[in-house]
């Protein structure tokens, strides 16, 4: 075990926008941290709250959800549902003293490769500063 902290960030990316955005970031040779572990989902609203809770409580230092911009959802309204769900999830995290800033929802379209790289860099920097997920200490993982 090295002394440096290498965060692990689980990213749920919607197939139609954010995942393609990530692809574009890659093909454009944009650098983004290796901390990001992308998981492709068909829609950001496919991300059941259980996925996030599980990722977080099982030790992910941050969880990112990437979806299409409001109005651009491939299934018309999926991301609006994600938005409501995410709001409730964050408030629950807050009331349990789990750091809600470790959850992030971003709208990244298929053409926004640079934005994807920026979001990943920003988020990783932030998690780097916040340190490891405290539930790792609190729980027996």
């Amino acid at each position, binding site marked *: 075990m090295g002394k440096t902290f290498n965060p692990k960030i689980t990213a749920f990316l919607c197939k139609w926008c954010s995942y393609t955005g990530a692809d574009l970031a890659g093909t454009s040779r944009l650098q983004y941290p290796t901390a990001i572990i992308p998981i492709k989902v068909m829609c950001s609203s496919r991300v059941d709250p259980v996925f996030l809770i599980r990722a977080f409580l099982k030790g992910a230092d941050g969880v990112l959800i990437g979806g299409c911009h409001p109005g651009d959802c491939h299934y018309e309204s999926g991301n609006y549902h994600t938005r409501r769900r995410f709001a409730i999830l964050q*408030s629950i995290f807050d009331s*349990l003293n789990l750091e809600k800033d470790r959850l992030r929802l971003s709208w990244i379209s298929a053409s926004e490769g640079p934005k994807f790289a920026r979001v990943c860099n920003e988020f990783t920097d932030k998690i780097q500063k916040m340190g490891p997920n405290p539930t790792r200490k609190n729980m027996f993982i």
Partner: protein
Amino acid sequence: MVKALREEVKRLFEEKKVDLVIGWGKGSLPMTATPIFINKAEDAERLIWDETCSNNLAVYLTKDKRQLVKTDQKIGIVVKGCDGRSLVLYAVENQIQRENLVIIGVPCAGVIDKKKVLKHIEGKEVLSASFEADRMTVEGRGFKTEIAKCDVLSDSCLNCNHPNAPVFDVFIGEPRKSDSVEDVYPDVEAFEKLDSEARWKTMVEAYSKCIRCYACRNVCPSCYCTECFVDQNDPQWIGKSPEITDTLIFHLGRNLHVAGRCVECGACERACPADIDLLKLNRKISKEILERFNFTAGLDINEKPALASFCENEKQDFIMG
């Protein structure tokens, strides 16, 4: 009241308006009522309605009894306020056919939580219990105690604004006037005022008692998935041991799955053998949904649950770019 209920059910059978009535009957132990299924007029005499009728009968319209809903059977169901709200939820979510249902409303003044009574008398065995307007008397070997009813009411009944079913076909007696409680969530507010460390500690302490019997899920009227995520093996979402991480995933997951659909009937809490304050997080979410989306579950038969609908130009301050 009970007499009127029995007469009404008898009348429904005689007029062939129902083939089956779901109601409460006397339980085998004191202070308990058991759900009963009546299919002929004579059996209406078995029906009771009092403070012990705590089960949310709406669950029998889904889950194990799902086949009942699919046939053309006309079903009568006796409901309190919260059970009635569950039925509204089912109607919104297309789980029941409203026209096959005869909803019999009863005015509810709150039901008792048996566990609270037992705590009150320090776990002594109760042999008989009787109820008056605002107090109850419990008797056992060598003791007889009077308890104020407000001390043993189920947590869900303490700040209830919906004593009558929002939708009904027949109502027994007069609908009870709502108490119009202004501060519906004092318990949640008290919890929110705790400092962050204490909130985490209370929750972990409470949930670490969980033995993962899933009784809360089984009695929950809003939990009617044919296969729950905790039962799935492939992929397996959570570990099977009662270990705190998995327990928290189960409870938080369940809370969020019923978010905006929970009618706060308190069935989960009354069913919990480990005496966990399960309603607190559900009520916290309900409060949040009320504040954010101005929605309360199970009141309007034409309104979709908050998390199944949306508004395009909603506040999205929590999204950072």
